[in-house]
Every structure is written in structure tokens, then in C-alpha cells.
């Protein structure tokens, strides 16, 4: 029934000092479609790839507005993301009600971290299966944070999460030095380039599958979708990914589309099996 003796209970350590349920939650984030975030001295932007379950279905929302100065991109279980974003909205409103102040970005992120950590230490529950990129602007300027299912959160200049997001990070690591002084359009262009690198071969960024979230010092958080995206997509020389890794490579194992019927869901299983093999070796 279990692949591993230490799989079932979130609070039970493996002898190697690991908590497998937390690692599986992290895998869930890697299966969500990609999201990219980056910031300059004046703005922070989010870019996300929306996914639809079929020709007849709409695209799943990837960006959520929390408050006038705050927005998030999600990767992983959408329903878990709804719990966390609702919580963030509550915290934002509480700050405005009690202190007449937009909540400082670090605080709402820390509150999410505290909430996620509880689920890694109490039995009977499970960690949130979602990762967040949070952008916001407050008195200290624009911010970008990443939140993980294990309760950690990090401050970034640029970051990506979700399926094939390593490709986006590779792009961001090569170009991040120009971000601080970049104009908003340049920032978005870099973000779109990074997002494009997460695409599978033959896929491209379109007005349907792309979402952009923009926030700045004195500029409220705004989600750009649909026809308005044309202006930003035209900043790219080509919307398809020129350097996409060939299908079947390790990265491509995380499929963007849900697996076809009958096809085994290999992503998590392979990872777990590899670990088991590793554990046996160590024993």
C-alpha cells in the first residue's frame, strides 16, 4: 500500500532525517504550470502560463489579486492556493482595518509561512500542495517572495516556480543584473522570455495562455490578460521557444497537460522510487 514505511504520517521522520510528505508536496508544486516573477527598483511583475484541460475548457486562473498593492502567482493545487490567498486577503484587510495601513509584504508572506509550517508539524493533516510567488509594493519599495509548502519563504530579485521552471531560472540567472534599473516594459519582456523558455516544443505564448501581473510603487496591482497582452507579446521576437529541450528529456517528464488516460503518472512515482533505491543503498 505504501511505497515507503515513512510515507503515511507527515510527522514521522525517516531514518535519513527526511519528511516524505513535505517532499511530495514540493513535487506537486513542480507539476503546476510555470510562473515567473521579477522586480526592478520601481516595479515587480508576475508572468504565468495558464493551462486548460481541453479544447472546450477555459484556462485555469494563475494570478490572484490580494490587495491594491499585492498579488500572487500560484503553482500546484489550485484549491489549496484558494485557501492561502483567502487567508492573505483576510490579513490584508485586517491590517487596513486595525492600522489603516496596506500590509507590509514581508508580513503577509511570513504569516503564510507560519500557516504552512503548522501543517508540517501536526499529525492528521497534510502540507499545502502549492507554491506562491508574491509581488507587492510598500514603503520599502517593490518586493518578490517565494512561498513553499514546507513553510519557508525567500526574498528574490527574480524567481520561477512550476513545471520546467528551471529553464526560466537559467534565463533569469543570465540576465538578472539588468533588472534593477530596467523599465517596466523591459522587465516584462525579460519575464516573457523566461516564461517562454518553460514551454514545451511547438507551444507558444498566446493571449489565451499568458497572464501578467504588474505592481509598482504608487501603481496598484493589475492583471493583464486577453487582448491587452498583444502589446506585451509583441515585445518578443518570437512567441515560441527556440531553445526548448527535446521531448523525453528529464525536464519534459513534468507534462504541462494532464496525463492521458491509462498513461502512468510518472513524475512523483519516479522521484519516490529513486529515493527508495537511494535509501536502500544507504542502508
Amino acid at each position, binding site marked *: 500500500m505504501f511505497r515507503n514505511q515513512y510515507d503515511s504520517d507527515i510527522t514521522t521522520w525517516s531514518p535519513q532525517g527526511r519528511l516524505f510528505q513535505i517532499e511530495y508536496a514540493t513535487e506537486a508544486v513542480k507539476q503546476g504550470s510555470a510562473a515567473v516573477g521579477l522586480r526592478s527598483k520601481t516595479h515587480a511583475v508576475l508572468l504565468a502560463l495558464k493551462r486548460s484541460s481541453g479544447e472546450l475548457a477555459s484556462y485555469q486562473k494563475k494570478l490572484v489579486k490580494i490587495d491594491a498593492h499585492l498579488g500572487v502567482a500560484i503553482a500546484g493545487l489550485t484549491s489549496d492556493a484558494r485557501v492561502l490567498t483567502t487567508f492573505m486577503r483576510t490579513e490584508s484587510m485586517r491590517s487596513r482595518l*486595525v*492600522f*489603516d*495601513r496596506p500590509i*507590509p509584504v514581508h*508580513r503577509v508572506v*511570513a504569516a503564510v509561512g507560519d500557516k504552512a509550517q503548522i501543517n508540517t508539524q501536526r499529525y492528521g493533516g497534510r502540507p499545502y500542495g502549492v507554491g506562491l510567488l508574491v509581488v507587492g509594493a510598500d*514603503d*520599502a519599495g517593490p518586493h518578490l517572495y517565494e512561498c513553499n509548502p514546507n513553510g519557508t519563504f525567500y526574498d528574490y530579485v527574480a524567481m520561477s516556480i512550476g513545471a520546467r521552471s528551471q529553464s526560466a531560472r537559467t534565463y533569469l540567472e543570465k540576465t538578472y543584473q539588468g533588472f534593477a534599473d530596467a523599465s517596466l516594459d523591459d522587465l516584462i519582456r525579460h519575464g516573457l522570455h523566461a516564461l517562454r523558455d518553460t514551454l514545451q516544443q511547438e507551444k507558444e505564448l498566446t493571449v489565451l495562455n499568458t497572464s501578467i501581473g504588474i505592481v509598482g510603487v504608487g501603481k496598484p496591482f493589475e492583471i493583464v490578460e486577453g487582448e491587452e497582452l498583444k502589446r506585451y507579446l509583441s515585445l518578443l521576437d518570437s512567441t515560441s521557444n527556440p531553445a526548448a529541450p527535446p521531448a523525453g528529456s528529464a525536464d519534459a517528464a513534468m507534462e504541462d497537460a494532464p496525463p492521458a488516460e491509462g498513461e502512468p503518472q510518472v513524475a512523483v512515482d519516479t522521484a519516490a522510487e529513486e529515493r527508495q533505491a537511494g535509501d536502500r543503498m544507504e542502508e
Partner: protein
Amino acid sequence: MTGTSVLAIKYKDGIMMAGDTLSSYGSLARFRDTRRIVQAGDYTVVGATGEVSDYQHIKHLLEEVLIEEYYTEDGHKLGPRNIFEYLSRVMYNRRSNFNPLWNYLVVAGFKEGDKFLGYVDLRGTTYQASTIATGYGSMIAQPLLRKAVEGRENEVTEEEALKLLEDSMRILWYRDARAWDKIQVAKVTSEGVTISEPYKLTTDWTVGEYVKGYGA
């Protein structure tokens, strides 16, 4: 145990506040060296009229909030508007539970060029103005403050402001039977918060010689 008037005005460089140091037990002048103006963070002072123990409780609440703000260490600091909003929520919440904190609070501060002066009382009623006076001062001193300050908030000098508050406190000492002649004056400017040590007002009782008909 109750304290009487608190006065506060806006002036050129920021805000200035004054209050005396008496805690009365009914009409008995019970404690003559109590302080009713407190600093709250780097940009704010809060002055209180009314029940002294409730005011001490409010000081504890503020300390709790400010300690949390300090250890969060994310570069944000509560300004006068934030502290005013917090206190107004506390005061209104307590009145809504039929257990009000029996005070009339004046919140004053200066942060990033923004002068703030606000009032909140035991009912959670709030307002902001360029002059505020509580207790007996709201009847006797407020008209004097308004006449001197309104429309001149950016012109009144520090010397002028101090004289206005001292004159008003002196008049209250003459006419308010719960007032005292030892006062503290606080100011908040771009330089930060200063609250003076208690000092005695100068007084002139020569007019007493001419008062007739009170058994003298």
C-alpha cells in the same frame, strides 16, 4: 483616579501637546506627579484624560503592538495615523462590549512631513483637527487655541506654540478645580519626539486682592 485636560496644536514644525501631572480622586488632589503623555514609537505621542488605570492599560497595549513592530525587523514603523487607527478600534471595541476604557485620548505625531492630530474617546468617537482639547480644556482652552492656530498651522512658531499652550494651561489651572500647576509639554517634529520633564507654571494671583464677596 482621573486626569484632567490635554491640549494639542499643530504648528510650523510639527505638533505640540500639553497636560498637567495631577491624578485626582474625585475632588481630592491625590497624586501630583503622574505623567499623562506617553511616546508611542518614533513619531507619535498619546495624551490621556480620564481614568488613569485605563490609560495605563492602553499604554500596555501600545507597548505590545510596538514591540511586535520592532522585532518584525522589516523596515516598517508605525506612524501616528496607524496608532490612531489602532486606538480608535480598541476604544470602539470596548464600548461595544459595554465595558469602555474611560478616556479621552489625543494622538499627535509627525512622520515624513505629515502632521497628524486626532482625538478618540471612550465611545470610539474620532475626529481630526488642527487644535484639540479634552476635558475642561475643551470648553475653556479650545476657543483660544482655535483663534491662535486655525489657518496658521504652518506659520505658528515653536515659541508662539509653547506660549499659547502654557497660557492655556495657566488659565485652566486658575479655573479648573481638577487642574494642577505642574505640566509637561511634548513636541513631535522632523527631529523626533521630545517630552519635557514636569515643570511649574508661573502664576499671578495679585488679582485676588480685588475679589470681593467670597468670605475674604
